[in-house]
């Protein structure tokens, strides 16, 4: 059987961002879990492509620097 470690052990979370028009800002539409950026792109497109986005981007959740969180402001 295939080793599925990359699904649970090696995978990291990516935030998925999109917008429908150039005039609106990117906003988070969801997230995917994948072991690398290539697979995360494929998963993001497969999962969130139901609407007509003009732009979609993914960001590793680990790369997001949080200034404050709910309850801290």
């Amino acid at each position, binding site marked *: 059987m*295939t*080793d599925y470690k990359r*699904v649970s052990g090696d*995978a990291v979370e990516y935030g998925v961002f999109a917008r429908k028009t150039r005039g609106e800002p990117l906003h988070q539409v969801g997230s995917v879990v994948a072991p690398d950026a290539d697979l995360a*792109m*494929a*998963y993001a497109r*497969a*999962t969130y492509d139901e609407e007509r986005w003009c732009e979609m981007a993914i960001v590793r959740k680990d790369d997001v620097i949080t200034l404050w969180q709910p309850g801290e402001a």
Partner: protein
Amino acid sequence: MSLSDLVLSLADNKQMLGLRYAEWATRAPSLEADIAAAAMGLDDLGHSRVLYGCLEPLGADPRGPERESDAASLRNLAYFDEPWTEWSQFVAANAVLDTAFTAMIEACVGGSVEVLQHRLRKMLMEERYHFLHGRSWLRSGIESAPLERAWREAIEWFGPPDGETAALHREGKLSMGPSELRAHLEQQLEMQAPRVNVDWRSWDPVRRRGKPGAIDAHTFGMLRGLEEKKYAPPPAAKQAAS
């Protein structure tokens, strides 16, 4: 053999690839992979519809009535004859065969036939994500048997070095011939094809495969709408309902 024959082979293979992907929509190793299998299945079934639609403008539609009764008249590769039982089979098809079909679509888009240049271009955008999915899973390591089989069938499908794919390339209808297609596939997947000795004398130029055989009866029934009919209400029940 003509360009229409090649496009029909591409359409039949895309249809079968889409169906086999869809069978894994609830069996892949993660929820994301399930969704990707379903989405890629829908893409490839859609691509097959577009390709079938190109046959008429190409001039000669090679589809005959035998396609309704003889599963062996469909032009799919042997790799799609039976449902896949292992994820490795899915990954090998996704990485090697799907990318091989995309290479041929690129050759059509880069060739001189206008209807193919225009209608197939959008497929390349969608196929980018199939490629990323396949290559990523391939890099994680899969069993060698399905990978070698997928490579062999891809090379067979490109055709012999002096066959009709090469002739279509020389005429400018395709921007790549068999050797360029193979090199392109190797470059895309960042790996050398395994050593494959194809006996072109026993190769079927219509179905573009070396092995005889056909898709399983259940899948063939589904393609013809017979499986759907099993669930249709009987005529009497239909009348009572109206």
